[in-house]
């Protein structure tokens, strides 16, 4: 999937709201259902591991990270960007910077024992760091005042993701073990897919960013492959993992959106995703997730964008 469509000036089309108001209360508080996992014995973690071992070349990936760096970009050609684009870049920079927080959130769960996963995350964090630094450099040559992003960044970094505390509670009260890992793979995949979409749209709206975005997409390609393969291997034939993953997917929200400032993010999403062609791209992401075992029918991104559209309706 590539951003082939041309920039569209049609900014007044909202991301299509999806009348999906019935998910209230789904996101939290339903983890008391965990008890029913107790009866089903062991995890069979090893089969699981074998199932996902082939394929993604972890060694090659860790060996040769695609760390896009500020010096790889011709920053001189990227001055004078529009405020709207800069705001979107600032949001993406904040999101890419929160990697270390995601790392923590994964590490406190049983997923941390997965040495393959932590090896991936170690390299991923490195790539993300340089990606975020590069976006920062673009903001810097445009004289972007970072102040307004600092609170969001700080909040993102300091707060516990509320997805985690239920996990920790569940781990304390019963042995869910590795079944959580699949869910982390799915939400990780979602995060990558939607930030990739945002980058693609950025390039479509501001052609000068095409080279930069191409490099970003190359790194994300690997991340998508890793998460997809892991999610698929860990969900297949594991109904409990599928159920947990469904719950975690319901609790998923746009990266960074959990930490307030949904209005600002709504503005960014309106700018990036308002064009009619985006419906198709959103659909593609949702089908990619729905194609995973046990996640049939989930339309996660569409629902999330619907929430944003509802909240941001009065024109700006």
């Amino acid at each position, binding site marked *: 999937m590539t951003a082939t469509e041309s920039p569209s000036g049609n900014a007044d089309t909202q991301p299509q709201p999806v009348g999906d108001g019935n998910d209230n209360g789904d996101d939290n508080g339903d983890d008391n259902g965990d008890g029913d996992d107790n009866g089903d014995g062991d995890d069979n973690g090893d089969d699981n591991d074998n199932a996902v071992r082939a394929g993604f070349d972890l060694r090659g990936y860790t060996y040769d990270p695609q760390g896009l760096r*500020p010096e*790889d970009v011709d920053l001189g050609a990227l001055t004078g960007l529009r405020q709207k684009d800069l705001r979107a870049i600032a949001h993406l920079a904040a999101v890419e910077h929160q990697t*270390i927080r995601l790392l923590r959130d994964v*590490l*406190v769960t049983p997923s941390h024992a997965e040495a393959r996963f932590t090896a991936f*995350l170690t390299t991923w964090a490195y790539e993300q*760091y340089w990606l975020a630094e590069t976006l920062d450099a673009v903001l810097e040559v445009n004289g972007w005042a970072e102040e307004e992003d*600092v609170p969001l960044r700080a909040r993102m970094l300091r707060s516990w993701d509320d997805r985690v505390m239920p996990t920790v509670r569940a*781990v*304390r009260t019963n042995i869910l073990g590795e079944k959580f890992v699949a869910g982390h793979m799915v939400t990780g995949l979602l995060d990558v897919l939607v930030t990739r979409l945002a980058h693609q749209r950025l390039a479509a709206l501001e052609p000068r960013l095409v080279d930069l975005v191409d490099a970003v997409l190359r790194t994300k390609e690997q991340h998508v492959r890793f998460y997809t393969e892991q999610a698929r291997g860990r969900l297949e034939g594991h109904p409990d993992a599928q159920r947990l993953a469904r719950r975690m997917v319901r609790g998923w929200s746009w990266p960074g959106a959990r930490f307030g400032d949904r209005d600002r993010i709504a503005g960014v999403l309106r700018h990036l995703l308002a064009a009619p062609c985006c419906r198709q791209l959103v659909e593609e992401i949702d089908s990619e997730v729905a194609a995973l075992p046990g996640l049939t029918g989930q339309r996660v991104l569409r629902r999330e964008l619907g929430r944003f559209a509802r909240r941001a309706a009065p024109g700006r």
Partner: protein
Amino acid sequence: MTSSGRERDVVGPDALARRRRTLYARSDTYRYTHCSGGWVVIRIDSRGRETSMVFDIDRFTKTSVRVHWDDLDFEEFRRNPLPPESLRTLRYMCDVEYHTVCYLRDMLVTPSQGDGEVNAFMTMWNREEFWHGEALAEILGIHGVTVDYSDLKDKRQRLGWRDRLSPVKQAVLANIVGRDFVAVHMIWGAANEWSAVAAYKRLAALEGHPVLAVLLKRIAAQEARHVAFYATQARERLARSSKVQKLARVALKKVWGPVGSGIMSEEEVTHVMGHLFSGPEGRKEIVTIDNHIAKLPGMAGLRIFQDALDARGIAA
């Protein structure tokens, strides 16, 4: 600000100011001097006291690479293999290096993870340590000792509840003592890194193996950079209050153990400490580390490394 990406080698005051702003309270002010090594940041706190930051995070991140051994002839280990006691020590070191990601987790759940500079360091540091593990695993592999990701996973899982819950405990503890806890992390990290430098130097000297010595020297050079970060941070943060100093003192005296003692059996700890640090030469290294620690604010008279040897009956 320079506009060309290729000229960003010297980071100017603007970029530094922006980066540091997230690091300290807004009431602090900064000035910058340019000296031989690059920009030095002088922080001036509300009472007019000046502290210089001797650790240059931008330089650290830019020069952080995975440890290289492609140019070394590892076949030498087949012609000239290492003796069992050294393999046992290497195995310990390898596990400790791979375990860094779990230690990273323990740090990330405390308030220390809010700082931009700390995050940047942690990202690079975690990756460097991961590659130390990879390098040592390769040498062990040549000797028929396999350390693969499923072994690591087994080990992490065997740590079980204690390990799973430690981040939670850590977070609770950190919330009680607040930001002071960061200082404890930093001095703890400094102690670990100092001992890593000493351990690699000692093993290189004891073995006198031509290829091993070169690799261990490279690793030790990276460990020395880690020392610089942790020691700078610890010095800064301990100097702020005597309350913090007391907390750190108690933690080092009552809770601290040689790196790896939380994850390896006591038998292995004793083997490694004895192998590397028994006798006058070993003791000399240990005394040096204790002296480094004792020079940090409020730490005078501490001799935790010597105590650790004495407690295990390892003679000087």
